[in-house]
Structures are given as C-alpha cells and as structure tokens.
C-alpha cells in the first residue's frame, strides 16, 4: 500500500511541479500552453480513437461523447456552481439539485409546455429565474447556521421536485417532452444523435463560467466570500456585508446550476421530476468535496470523476455504487481536503525553496 501512497505522492508532486513550471514560463509560452490545452479539450470526443489513450479513456458500455456531455459537462458545471456556495463561501447546500431542476423546467416550460420560445432565448430567462430562486431561498434561510442551512436547503430541493411532480401545469410525473434544442450555429447541428455539438456548447459554457468565476474569485467579492467562510463574525466586523455576499454566492451558484439545467434540458429534450432526486444533490456535493472544496479546479476534477468513473467502471455493474461509497470514505480519511486542495499564496513554493536551502546548508 505504501506503494500506492508513494505513487499518489508522485502524481501530486507532478501536478505541483506543473504549476511551478507554469508560473515560470513567460506570457507567450503560457498562452500557447493554454491554447493547446483548450484545443485538446475540444477534441476530447475523438480521444477514444487514439491508440492506447483511447483504450484508457473510452467508456466500455456507453458512448464516450454522450457521457462527456450528459454526465461530465453537466457535473463540471454544477460542481463549479456548487463550489462557489460550499467551497468558497462555506455555505452547506444539500439541495442544489433544486436549481438544476429550475433551470431545466423553465427551459421546458418556455420552449415546449407553455411557450414556443427558441432555446437560445429561454437560456437567459432560465438562468435569471434560477438566480431568483436562489434569492428567494437565500433571503430567509441564510441567517441560519451551517447545519440548519443544510437541512433547509435539502428540503428546498425536495419541495421543488415534488412540486414539479404534483402539478399538472409542470407536467406532473409525466414530465415535459419535446423541449427545443439549441439552434444550429457555426456549422454545428444540434440533433438527436450526435452529442458532439452539445459537448462543444457545454464546454464553452464551462469556459465562460470559469472565466466569470475566476474574475469573481480574485476580486473584492471573492475575498468577501472566503472571509465569510473563514470567520463570519470577523468578516462582518471588518466591514463585509456578510448577508449580501452570502446571498450573492447563493444566487450565482443557483444561476450556474440553472445553466446546467438548461443545457441538460436542451440536450435530452425530455425531463421529468425523477431526473432530479435528492441523491443527486448529495452526489454533487461529493463531487465538490472529493475534488477539493474551495478550489475551482479541484471541483472540476471532482465533477469529472464522479460523472465519469461510474461509466468507466461499467464492468463492476451493480457494484459500482458500492465502490463509489467506499472510495468516498477512503478519500476523506486519507485526503480530507480533496484531491486538489485549495492552495493559498505561494507558501508551497517557499517551503520547497526553504527545504532546498536546508539541503544546501547541511
């Protein structure tokens, strides 16, 4: 087992090594590395056709690009959104699936059940309404302390699902079908068979969200969030309007959850309340914490793993959920901060430098 631990240390060292090399590069080199990475990501659907690599990444029982879109992209979007709420602002939300559902349902209602809007128009409306739901839920509940907030949000997620299930206007348990698909653009046809255009669209959404969150995180807003997470009272005494910023975190998180819902609804064309069970909220949270709560890239990695691994491990058939549960426990025992824990400042660089100095000295 020490072998495994050792291996693990190596892998993480490799990544941190990457980080340092990255910082050491000049601007031009850095941007080209980014560019190459982005292009490679957009080419992901073709990876299974590559020899060797394809063997490793391909999902045995299901279509790889569909998994990429329907599972991975959706989970990554959601992990990004939930990470704002849980990871950065430190608000425990166990009902995140509610916002995902709102996004999907608004799209469904506007483009199919009670309207005939194009998907592209439904998108902003759905995101805004999801944010409104965040606001509506957050205003009364954000005064509650951590664990109380958790159960209230959990209840909220259930209320959303059950309301959808019980109201004929929302399609009740039949759900809503014939949801409009995204319009064909840039030569991409959003049909039923080919998942690739959806993946490109979803990946673009992910990049946009990363861009926005990156800007938020390294601004007054992001600092306020982290300050609230670290010590809410101290933050307030340092002049942070904690309620306002908590509400913002909730609202932005809700918006991203809603966006994921819009994308999902547009892709599948059919939703019903059973697509939004309570267990999904828990899975979302697991993704964020597994990857590294508070670290955007950790959350992304968590989202990828939680979405992709069950498909990759289809051979385990009915044991994959069991394996998932055990892995969660093991991860939390041995790496409680997640796979990519949040990093603060440049201390790790300093530490390394210092240890090198030490070596020279001795």
């Amino acid at each position: 087992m020490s072998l495994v631990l050792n291996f693990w240390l190596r892998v993480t060292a490799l990544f941190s090594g990457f980080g340092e090399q990255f910082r050491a590069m000049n601007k031009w080199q850095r941007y080209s590395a980014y560019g190459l990475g982005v292009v490679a990501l957009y080419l992901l659907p073709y990876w299974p056709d590559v020899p060797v690599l394809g063997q490793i990444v391909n999902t045995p029982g299901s279509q790889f690009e569909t998994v990429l879109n329907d599972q991975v992209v959706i989970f990554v979007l959601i992990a990004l959104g939930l990470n704002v709420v849980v990871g950065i602002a430190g608000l425990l939300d166990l009902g995140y699936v509610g916002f995902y559902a709102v996004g999907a349902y608004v799209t469904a209602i506007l483009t199919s059940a009670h309207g005939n809007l194009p998907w592209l128009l439904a998108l902003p409306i759905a995101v805004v309404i999801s944010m409104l739901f965040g606001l509506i839920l957050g205003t009364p509940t954000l005064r509650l302390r951590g664990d109380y907030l958790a159960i209230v949000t959990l209840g909220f997620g259930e209320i959303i699902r059950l309301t959808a299930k019980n109201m004929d206007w929302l399609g009740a348990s039949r759900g809503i079908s014939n949801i409009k698909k995204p319009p064909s653009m840039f030569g991409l046809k959003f049909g039923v068979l080919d998942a690739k255009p959806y993946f490109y669209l979803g990946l673009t959404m992910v990049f946009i969200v990363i861009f926005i969150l990156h800007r938020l995180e390294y601004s007054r807003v992001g600092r306020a969030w982290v300050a609230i997470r670290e010590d809410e009272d101290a933050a307030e005494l340092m002049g942070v309007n904690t309620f306002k910023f908590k509400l913002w975190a909730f609202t932005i998180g809700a918006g991203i959850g809603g966006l994921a819902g819009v994308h999902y609804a547009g892709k599948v064309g059919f939703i019903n309340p059973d697509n939004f069970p309570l267990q999904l909220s828990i899975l979302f949270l697991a993704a964020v914490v597994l990857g590294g709560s508070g670290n955007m890239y950790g959350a992304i990695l968590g989202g990828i793993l939680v979405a992709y691994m069950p498909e990759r491990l289809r051979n385990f058939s009915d044991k994959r959920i069991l394996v998932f549960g055990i892995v969660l426990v093991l991860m939390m025992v041995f790496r409680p901060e997640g796979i990519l824990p949040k990093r603060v400042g440049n201390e790790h660089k300093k530490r390394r430098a210092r240890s090198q100095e030490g070596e020279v000295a001795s």
Partner: protein
Amino acid sequence: MSEVLLDFNNVTMQFGGVTALNEVSLQIKQGEILGLIGPNGAGKTTCFNVMTGVYAPTLGTVSFEGKNLAKLKRFEITKVGIARTFQNIRLFSEMTALENVMVGADARKKASVGGAILRTSRQRHEEKESRERSMELLQFMGISDRAETAARNLPYGYQRRLEIARALATEPKLLCLDEPAAGFNPAEKEELNELILKIREQGYTVLLIEHDMNVVMKVSDRVAVLDFGQKIADGLPADVRNNPAVIAAYLGVEDNAS
C-alpha cells in the same frame, strides 16, 4: 483635538442575569490613546464588543461622532470608522496576509459582482488601490516579506501585526486593539509600543486594551480602569498608577493582606 469621538454613556450589559458592565461611562477623544485596563474578566472585552456592535447594550447608549451605534449593523460600524483586532487572533486563515488586509481595505470600496465580472475601470482602479494600500500597510507593520503566505502559516508575532494592519486598512477613525501584546516578549512589546505611537502619529485614535502595565503606561495618554464591570478610575497614567482603588482591585489586595 479634544473633540469626543466615542461616547460611552452609562452602559450596562447583562448576560442572562450576570452583569458584565455596570453603568460604565467613558469617552474617547479625537487623537488620543486611551488605555483600558482591568483584571481578566473585568469586562474589558465586553466593553469592546459593545463598542464594535457585537452586542447591543442592555441599557445606556454608545455614540460615535454623535451617532448612536445601537441601530447599526456590525458591518456598518466599520464603515462609520471603528476597527478592531481580536484578543484571540481571528485572521482569515486560508487567505494570504495580503488578502487579509485587502478584505479590510475592501470595506471602503463599492465594486460588487457586476464590476468584478465586467472588470469595469472603477473595479480595476479600486482593486489596484486596495492592493497598493494593503501592501503599504504590510510594510508599515513590517511584515511585507510574508505578504503571500497564508495567514495560518505566519509566525505568531506576524499574525498579531497582521490583525492590526487589517484593521487599519478599513480606514478607521478609531482603532481598537484588544490585548495586542499578548504573547510578546519584552523586546517585541517595545517594538509594539513604538508601532502604536506611530499609528497615532498617522492620525488614528487608539483604544488599547492591555494587561501589560509596561505597554499601557508607556503609550497611553489616558488610562481607564475597569473592575468587576465598573469603571473605578480614569486619568493620566501616573495618577492611575497611584490610585489606591486601582492598586486594591488590580494590583492585588496587598494592603489588607499585609
């Protein structure tokens, strides 16, 4: 110079039957360093918390520049111009030193979510301002060499100073320091004394809660003594030092014991 900045008028504070402060009146004048001393548990920290809006007084009023603080929310008190440090250090431990100070500096900034996403010119300007001001403060406190270190990894002395820097960043009129010398050795205390005086020179009014007589007596313009929730003395350091009531309460009951 002698304008009253903070007026503590007949404040009583009770917690479930226990009286922590009993009709305390206290004034802090513009530009002075007021030392507040008293035995542990005498009510200094409660006094402090009432002042910074953590608790609302049971009776009496606290006003700052004539404005009643009771109605204000906690974060608004910072905006009015009161900043504080904490007895048991409460930094944002997962943020760098610089970010900690920037949170303080942000108190005076306006840009919010929209500005941050769009990177408006105002936001960029404010961001730059915050960063520069925070860096200056770190330099002022002599801890800028560890600006990029996570607060939790800073040495103790740095953490204490970082708290002061963070408080200063909110551009307070009144800076409240809660036992800033706790855990310092004499040399460090000496440095702290100088620092406090330097802060005052910059135009801040300082309220200093401290246990160490060396620190309090050396830097304070005026010293108030709390004991058992009551103010028992208020005056120049030399006078307070020789006040029999203070000696009895604070320095031990030496006279009736001997």
